[in-house]
């Protein structure tokens, strides 16, 4: 038998809204209405304001380490717009505040998380999303499990899982892709390729030309999208979610975007990132691009911009107030959520934290009465 091609594939890339704000009308058809774009643009402004405010909170000592989201607003908002609130499910990592907010998460939850307060993860059940996930790649498997539960119960729901370019190097990512495609569960893998995993550029993360092509090995529909293009991100996500809901199984999206900030507030990207690269990335900032589009269509002007910025500042100010004015957690909370029923030893430890803090309650030691010395066997411990 001669050699023959048994498999071949191509990776498509979708862009609908160009960096200059011009739109491909035919591709844009049936995607976002003018009203949608205006609303999402206002959300972008709000999320950017939140992001910069969170950065300042960290710098002024009012919050712990924070990973800025800026630059990824179009990718996350465009994707989240394709979800049905409270029905479809978001499994995020930690640069998807805009998607989580659009899906209904009160904004102070994200602040609480980075303020070192677990209540930021206590997401109300009706919101249909899991909390911020700091470990890389692990949540891709949880997303598959959640989608699997939806499928088992025949619920009309699908899951979108976000992760970065770095996560595609983890074993869990590949195990998740494999499980998802074998089980044909309703999950969309959305890789936010922001070019950097802390200091590792995506070209050092893997040797393939795209991240999208990783899905080919799992027999999964896959596409690359301009992640700074609201229209393209909405379109590819909507297609993938519809396929998932219709029983078509998982899909993969590579959203090519850019991390405009440092990895986190604990990082200084100037140590490794060429200044010119950041400069050119700033020119394709999704917020600028979306504004150009709106202005070209006479849907937006400077007055509206000023009003939107003012409104965003007000909202963020209030949100910070809510987060900072949360009553402090009780030290009991360290214990009370370890198990549904607190085991006796933990009850004791909880008590000691309230009283003397040495970790062992002296009144609990030697509670049983000492027994009579055994003189029939051996010798007492203190005998010569």
């Amino acid at each position, binding site marked *: 038998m001669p050699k023959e091609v048994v498999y071949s594939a191509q990776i498509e890339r979708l862009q609908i809204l160009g960096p200059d704000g011009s739109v491909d009308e035919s591709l844009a058809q049936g995607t976002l209405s003018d009203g949608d774009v205006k609303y999402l643009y206002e959300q972008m402004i709000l999320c950017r304001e939140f992001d910069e405010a969170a950065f300042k909170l960290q710098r002024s000592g009012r919050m712990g380490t924070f990973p800025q989201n800026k630059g990824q607003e179009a990718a996350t908002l465009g994707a989240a717009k394709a979800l049905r609130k409270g029905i479809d499910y978001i499994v995020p990592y930690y640069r998807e505040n805009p998607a989580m907010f659009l899906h209904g998460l009160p904004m102070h939850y994200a602040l609480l998380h980075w303020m070192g307060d677990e209540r930021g993860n206590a997401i109300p059940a009706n919101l249909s999303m*899991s909390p911020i996930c700091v470990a890389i790649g692990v949540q891709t*498997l949880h997303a*598959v499990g959640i989608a699997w539960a939806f499928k088992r119960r025949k619920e009309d729901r699908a899951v979108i899982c976000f992760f970065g370019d770095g996560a595609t190097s983890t074993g869990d990512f590949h195990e998740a892709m494999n*499980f998802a495609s074998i089980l044909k569960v309703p999950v969309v893998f959305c890789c936010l390729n922001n070019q950097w995993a802390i200091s590792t550029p995506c070209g050092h993360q893997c040797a393939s030309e795209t991240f999208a092509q990783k899905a080919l090995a799992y027999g999964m529909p896959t596409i690359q999208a301009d992640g700074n293009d609201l229209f393209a991100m909405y379109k590819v996500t909507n297609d993938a979610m519809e396929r998932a809901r219709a029983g078509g199984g998982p899909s993969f999206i590579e959203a090519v975007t850019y991390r405009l900030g440092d990895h986190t507030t604990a990082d200084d990207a100037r140590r490794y990132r060429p200044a010119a690269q950041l400069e050119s990335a700033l020119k394709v900032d999704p917020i600028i691009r979306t504004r150009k589009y709106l202005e070209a269509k006479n849907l937006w002007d400077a007055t509206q911009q000023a009003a939107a910025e003012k409104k965003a500042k007000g909202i963020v100010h209030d949100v910070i107030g809510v987060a900072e004015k949360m009553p402090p957690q009780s030290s009991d909370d360290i214990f009370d959520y*370890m198990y549904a029923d607190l085991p006796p030893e933990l009850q004791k430890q909880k008590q000691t934290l309230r009283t003397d803090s040495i970790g062992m309650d002296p009144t609990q030691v030697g509670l049983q009465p000492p027994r009579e010395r055994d003189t029939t*066997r051996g010798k007492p411990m203190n005998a010569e």
Partner: protein
Amino acid sequence: MAKLDLVAAINQALAQEMEADERVMLLGEDIGVNGGVFRVTDGLQKRFGPDRVVDSPLSESGIIGTSIGLAMAGMRPVPELQFEGFMGPAYDQIVNQAARCRSRTRGAFTCPLTIRVPVGGGIHAPELHSDSPEVVYVHTPGLKVVMPSRPYDAKGLLISAIRDPDPVIFFEPKRVYRAIKEEVPEESYTLPLGKAQVISEGSDLTMISWGAMVSVCLAALDQMPEEASVELIDLQTLSPLDVETITRSVCKTGRAVVVHEAPKTAGLGAEISSLIQEHCFLSLEAPVQRITGFDTSMPYYKLEKQYLPDEDRIMAGVRDCLAY
């Protein structure tokens, strides 16, 4: 009443819980068509279908990670990891994800899953098929760890584990799988997690063990009935520990011997010794003895008999403790 071995008792528990609760599902490598490498899940796929008894890819982290998602979304997954030596790839998901799920979300999410794992040596298995890593998971807050020693207990404990609202690691001693047959009621029943069982009462010395070692302890004690009256405690649940039962007994007897397969240093015996000195200091007649595996890699099976505590080592330890 039917006499069942450990394999059959666990199989029955799984079947009854699947019957009783639509949310319960099994997943793991070779557990479906093949019924598991130890046949613990034999016949269950035929009975409950391939959607509820799922042959998974060879992917331990995937098995546990997807189980966590299933549990977060309201299912009751009972994943199997084929051998304890393959827990490594799933360690991150078990310890950093499942165990913390409830606390890091302040109870908004919970992770009710039961991870079944065959454990321990003594069956001439290949490399990485004979270890005793239970203390690693006992040392992880948020998990419960169970290891039955016999069929009756296994059935009741497993049903409790599956119904438990928190993640449970259910270790099944391989050496016991086919070794003990006993009467096991057909109907479903539970045994409480967190409770040790006093197998035999005694007044001279307390012996504490769990899993496959319990039978070895019994065999050792059978050989020295006239030498001492020994109270044997089978822990059954390793986390949370039943401190009350252990310390009440040792305060009564004044002497304690802990027997486990796992390596000695920082094994669960160390924690038990420490609890005993905290609670029974003035009652002790002798230092707590630990009869354990060695601080070595588990040898290949040609030398596993030398590694594992046996009746002779247990008898010698008891005599040392009594003579102190």
